[in-house]
């Protein structure tokens, strides 16, 4: 487990959340295998509670949030560190 995490850190994965598109449906929260997503207390400009990454260190970049999101909120990029 530890070496996998090290590998991920070396690969410098990045996850971005477009809060303005989120409608607070919680499909990502429900399916995240590491339970690192939650709805924020604040609102976005559309009046929804957008999703936030509460434990970024636990994220394994599996992409399930991207797969389930109906609103195009998540992007996950991998850039290899040399």
């Amino acid at each position, binding site marked *: 487990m530890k070496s996998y995490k090290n590998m991920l850190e070396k690969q410098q994965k990045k996850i971005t959340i*477009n809060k*303005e*598109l989120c*409608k*607070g*449906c*919680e*499909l990502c929260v*429900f*399916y995240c295998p590491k339970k690192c997503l939650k709805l924020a207390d604040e609102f976005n400009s*559309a009046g*929804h509670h957008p999703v936030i990454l509460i434990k970024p260190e636990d994220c394994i*970049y599996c*992409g*399930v949030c*991207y*797969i*389930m*999101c*109906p*609103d*195009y909120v*998540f*992007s*996950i*990029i*991998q850039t290899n560190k040399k």
Partner: protein
Amino acid sequence: MKFLYPESLKQTRHLYCAGCGHGIIHRIIAEVVDELNIREKTIGIAPVGCAVFAYDYWNFDVTEAPHGRPPAVATGIKRVLPDRIVFTYQGDGDLSAIGTAEIIHSANRSENITVIFVNNANYGMTGGQMAPTTLLKQKTLTTPFGRDIKYDGYPIKVCELLSVLDGTVYLERTAVNSPKNVMRTKSAIKKAFLCQIENKGFSLVEILSQCPPGWNMTPVESLKWVDEVMINTFPLGVIKEKI
């Protein structure tokens, strides 16, 4: 590994409800179009229903069609442009109510088109009325006491209905209520587009889609309703494969 939005998708706010399956399905179609490298050859036909604005969400040519008529419009396009990839995107009212004649006959002629049929067991856009695919005992705006065989008939199983026609080549029913089902839907859609690219004939993917407001549930509850209730009437899987 990358999870980036496909070029064929406009990454813009859309008008679908929170948790609605349409957003997922639009993305999957866009991913397939990108992966098959057919964006510049694809022409989509939007329905009348929740997805009426689909042309605002995809980055390829899309046309409107009168309610229920997309298969006829698709026929008119594909016959004069046989090398383009033509698909219709229809809901349960569009396809299985008003459009029954058009879907049956375009399937019967084995038009070389792909139909994406989004089944959410009610008429979302107009407020949640009964659809031909509404389940027995399901309460909707026009079945306030629950769908009753005596007055309202039975839910229509579109894939099974079309499977009897010799002209249909590939029919599969999937869902988008879990990551596994979403991935399965994507491979079904890809298979259906490949069926068209390889000139094999009529293909249709029926996708059970969650409709939280129409079912009076939260988005997460609606995921479970697909598994616990819908699939009993609409079993998932390949209904026909003649390829």
